[in-house]
């Protein structure tokens, strides 16, 4: 008798749709902290003109190489100034615009192209796979910087050029990774099951295979944030990227390289910003992965 009463309660508990649980997942530290960092940076970038204390391009030779406020500098320049007397904090805030939007755009473009080609090659196999993978090999082998130069020369250095230069080759690691995952899934019984109930190849690729490769996709995307910022800075340093004096995190790090002994803050703070974005991306990716995997969701 007791058992028949107990059963419905167990079912309700197991289904886990209570309103209390819904919000729990957002209160975890590995979601809150990285989200706060990213939101702060994005808001600061969006309202850069209102938030930043100085014009990021305004030079002032009398104020050059001021150390940060807490290291003996003045309260006027909280994070110090660079060799032309420009405020480092203001440049980081304005640099976030370029660096974040370039990263986001590049990830969107490369992940979309790479995932599509990877799924197509992995699922269809045969000639399509061979062709796509050879193109991928070529893209992986081609030097980024050379192509960046080529595009900078033909299109002129700009944010668009940087995005294009990184995207044109950047999809290849996605295609390679996703294709491997799909090869593994293609012979899974649940894919055969989808064919048994009459699903078309397109539907199988989109709704039966794709949700199973979201994890590696997320991890690669979040990891590539750092790489993109670095490539962008390398291109800027060589004059093929975003042209100076526009502030980008990458170009700020490379500006300060020669003065690292005497004025460490010029490179350190934009570097710290890059690190924080990359870490936040990775943590959020982990968090999202755990959310998306039903096996981990209930724990």
């Amino acid at each position, binding site marked *: 008798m007791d058992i028949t009463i107990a059963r419905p309660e167990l*079912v*309700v508990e197991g289904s886990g749709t209570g309103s209390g649980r819904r919000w729990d997942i957002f209160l975890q530290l590995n979601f809150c902290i990285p989200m706060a960092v990213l939101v702060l940076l994005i808001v600061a970038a969006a309202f850069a003109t209102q938030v930043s204390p100085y014009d990021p391009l305004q030079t002032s030779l009398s104020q050059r190489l001021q150390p940060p406020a807490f290291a003996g500098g003045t309260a006027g320049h909280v994070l110090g100034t660079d060799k032309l007397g420009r405020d480092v904090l203001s440049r980081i805030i304005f640099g976030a615009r370029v660096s974040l939007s370039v990263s986001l755009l590049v990830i969107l473009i490369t992940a979309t192209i790479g995932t599509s080609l990877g799924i197509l090659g992995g699922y269809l196999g045969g000639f399509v796979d061979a062709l796509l993978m050879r193109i991928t090999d070529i893209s992986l082998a081609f030097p980024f910087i050379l192509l960046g130069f080529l595009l900078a020369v033909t299109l002129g250095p700009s944010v668009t050029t940087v995005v294009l230069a990184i995207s044109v080759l950047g999809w290849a690691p996605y295609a390679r990774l996703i294709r491997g995952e799909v090869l593994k899934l293609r012979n899974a019984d649940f894919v055969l*099951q989808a*064919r048994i*109930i009459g699903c078309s190849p397109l539907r199988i690729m989109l709704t039966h295979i794709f949700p*199973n490769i979201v994890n590696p996709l997320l991890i690669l995307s979040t990891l590539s944030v750092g790489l993109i910022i670095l490539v962008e800075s390398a291109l800027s340093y060589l004059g093929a990227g975003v042209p100076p004096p526009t502030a980008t995190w990458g170009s700020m790090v490379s500006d300060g390289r020669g003065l690292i002994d005497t004025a460490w803050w010029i490179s350190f703070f934009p570097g710290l910003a890059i690190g924080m974005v990359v870490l936040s991306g990775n943590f959020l990716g982990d968090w999202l992965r755990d959310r998306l995997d039903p*096996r981990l969701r209930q724990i």
Partner: protein
Amino acid sequence: MPAVSRQPSANDDLLKVEDLRTYFFTRRGVVKAVDGVSFSVAPGETLGIVGESGSGKTMTSLSLLRLVPQPGGKIVSGKVLFEGVDLLQVSESEMREYRGSQISMILQDPMASLNPVYTVGEQVAEPLRQHQHLAGKPLWDKVTEALRLLRIPSPRERLQNYPHQMSGGMRQRVVGGIAISCRPKLIIADEPTTALDATIQAQYLALLKDLQRETNVAMIFVSHDFGIVAKMCDRVAVMYAGKIVETATVRELFSNPQHPYTIGLVKSVPRLDRKVERLASIEGQPPALLNLPPGCRFAPRCYAAFDRCRVEEPPHVRAGEGHYADCWNVLYPAS
């Protein structure tokens, strides 16, 4: 209309397979996984296909749905007549209309045949969306109905479960629910209980029987277990090395097996009503399908083989009402 009992005859077969051949073209040569298989299934009937591992049972089932593994596998010739339509001749998109809605299949391993990222409700709903274009309440009513048919307790709540939250037996019931959701006329069950333990196995088989009684679906029941086949099937086809060697009703096959291979199999089943010192076994191994011996494929292991068996393929011999065996010994009982 006068109540006439339906006699299975040639023209009201639901499925009629004629001389089906599925080969695998590999680097080492042609593997004849299914080599000239013919059988038929009447509406509401259960046909058992038995045979040891590698005898071509699964490839035969997959060939019926045209889902032979690629690359390499190919249906070379034959006919698969489903309600008179040759499924090997229709286009791929027409074939997709048959899959899941007319003919469905239950796979062996319930742990692997459900997609881990979707709830079981979503997965039972998928064929209904594909074929009946349902959505909203009518869709979920049908999904619940399918789960109820498979005796899944509190189906409404279970819809929201993920496969990993269910036991093996429950998952296999869900797979059965997917198969029955569109009310197909034929379900191919490919060793559906191999991955389940003995008690759950018995439950599941009883469930499939009930399901058949309630929906009058025809079934092809693939198994290597003679005991299960005896319980589940009306007729049995015995496969050996890509060929069907004997077909008969269950009763006839067990009481009067004709082919030496079938005789060996029947003898090797342990029985409660007879005391035997040691169960009979069939010596040797089935032949590699890459280079088959000439003549009868069973000849090297056969206790009754004579010269002709080793050179000439055995004929299709009628051994009784609906009972056929491919064996020279059946044709010439004296020898």
